[in-house]
């Protein structure tokens, strides 16, 4: 759902670099160069960042909507 904390294969910590990676790649940088700059050298760790998709980002909006609706109902009741 979120970026895995560690690399599945070698156990290296990768989650702390995800935010940085994502921002740079979205800004149009080459993912390979970003990974090199972050010091992720092994291909097992590189695929973790390259291929992860945070599905939590797709679910959260529904809960935001629930909260908004909840607040609307509350204000109408008042």
């Amino acid at each position, binding site marked *: 759902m979120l970026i895995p904390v560690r690399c599945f294969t*070698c156990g290296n*910590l990768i*989650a702390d670099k*995800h935010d940085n990676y994502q921002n740079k790649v979205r800004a149009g940088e080459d993912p390979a160069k970003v990974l090199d700059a972050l010091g992720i050298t092994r291909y097992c760790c590189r695929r973790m960042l390259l291929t992860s998709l945070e599905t*939590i*980002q797709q679910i959260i909006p529904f809960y935001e909507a629930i909260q908004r609706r909840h607040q609307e109902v509350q204000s109408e009741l008042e």
Partner: protein
Amino acid sequence: MDFEDFTQDLSSLEVISKDDKKMSVKLKGVPLQYANALRRVCLNGVPVFAIDTVDILENSSVLPDEGLAHRLGLIPIKTDLKRFNEPSKCECKSETGCSNCKVMLVLDSGDTEATRTVLSDELTSEDDSVKPIADNIPIVQLAPGQRVKVECYARLGRGSEHAKWNSANIAILTETDKEDERILTVESTGSLKPEQIILAGVEEVGVRLSEFKDMINEVEA
């Protein structure tokens, strides 16, 4: 040369390269079987801290309790081997543990106003030296109105029990041109410094070998 000679004469270790995560040492005159034993112990025989028990007081996030506990368990935690004991070898001999073998970390997100990510720096430890190695590991994302409140208990453990206690990501032996020289490369997970892993590994191999010796003697007697 047997392992005891080796541990008494650490000059046979020559540091080739070293930084805060990765270290390479040249092993001179160490038989292959001892060198490999050391490599394996460096990988998963040196105790490090990891969160083992999580009490979930509140979790209204989209991540289920076990998912949250799993993520917390995988966070590498700074380890001070001198001050803490493994629960099985601790003097307290209790199941609940004492301050020498267990550390509590608390995570409370509070009320969420806007969608945000809960990071590892929000884990507050009761011991300053035992804390996550990085401050920006995402634990969970919360929508408005969601909350996470957990109590985590970290303890020392070994990689042979669960990979979250692995002391090193990588530990490899590479052959050199000379017959009795090998290079041991250890990359730490960040919980311990690589040199600490190698030194603790040497000690651990020594302990295991003497235990083995005792066992053999008992069988003979």
